[in-house]
């Protein structure tokens, strides 16, 4: 039987795609909460902004751990 199509590469790419879902939702929640709070109380926008970036950074770290570990433990398909 001849091979018509072949998939080659690293399974870590699939793993990273799955791992990015969670942080994606999380970052979305952070910014949606910020937009809502600013819409309800516009004068609080400067007060909450540092916490937005801290929350964003903490959540984003998970996605970035995914990138780093994807290269460390890459499996060949």
């Amino acid at each position: 039987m001849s091979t018509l199509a072949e998939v080659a590469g690293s399974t870590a790419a699939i793993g990273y795609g799955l791992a990015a879902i969670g942080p994606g939702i999380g970052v979305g929640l952070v910014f949606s909460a910020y937009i809502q709070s600013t819409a309800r109380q516009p004068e609080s926008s400067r007060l909450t902004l540092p916490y937005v970036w801290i929350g964003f950074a903490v959540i984003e770290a998970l996605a970035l751990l995914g990138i780093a570990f994807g290269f460390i433990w890459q499996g060949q398909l």
Partner: protein
Amino acid sequence: MTGQSHVLAADVPFPPSVEDFYLPSIVPWEGTDSYWFTKITFLVWLTVAILIIFFLVSYRKPQLVPTKKQWLAESVYGFVRNNISVEMIGHRGVAFAPYLTTLFCFIFLNNLWGIVPVAQISPNSHIAFPAFLAIISYLMFILVGIRHHGFLKYFKTALIPPAPWFILPLLIPIEFFSNFLVRPFSLAVRLFANMFAGHMLLLVFTLGGFAMINANPWFAPFSVVSWVMTIALTFLEFLVVALQAYVFTVLTASYVQGALADEH
């Protein structure tokens, strides 16, 4: 020009790999494999030189009506002092403003090499530099806490949250894990992985264009799209560069604030 693109298209190592981050030595010494002076080394020294010379020159003769250079230096310092240190730490934050400004400028400039033409790789895309910056911040917030509270009281406030006694066996390990193990690690990995992924992304789109032309000349329009994407992503990278410098500084400030906080 055609010759050059022909050579580039001839053998493009398409899926870019980790090896692309290990640049050859500029000055080979004891063989070509000794990486003692690469582009990375050069860029770090250049960053340090630019920062020292810029701040020395712009504060040499301070004017009441600031010159352009003085205005730039003052607004960078003022931004970090007012919008990061004082806002996060409070009135004690003024004492940390010089360190945080240095940190901010160093990370920003080091990250910026990732999108500056010709340089086009950030020294922070090697884990060593972010790791050392994180260790400095880590030691600093622990020492600041110990100096402020005393050794035992600092670890007591850092590790024992006000909670019922029966939940403490669960909470103390979690607090220890998050405050003393995850913090430096995530600080280093966040900066490193952002710069690493950014460089990788630009490599994928640049080399991908060449790989497509290489595979079939009819794919040339797709290559152009790929290179246009590279330019767009370079602007996105600028956002990431500024954001990561800001985030690293804000997180350091918030850890210092946590170490200085009197009660939970």
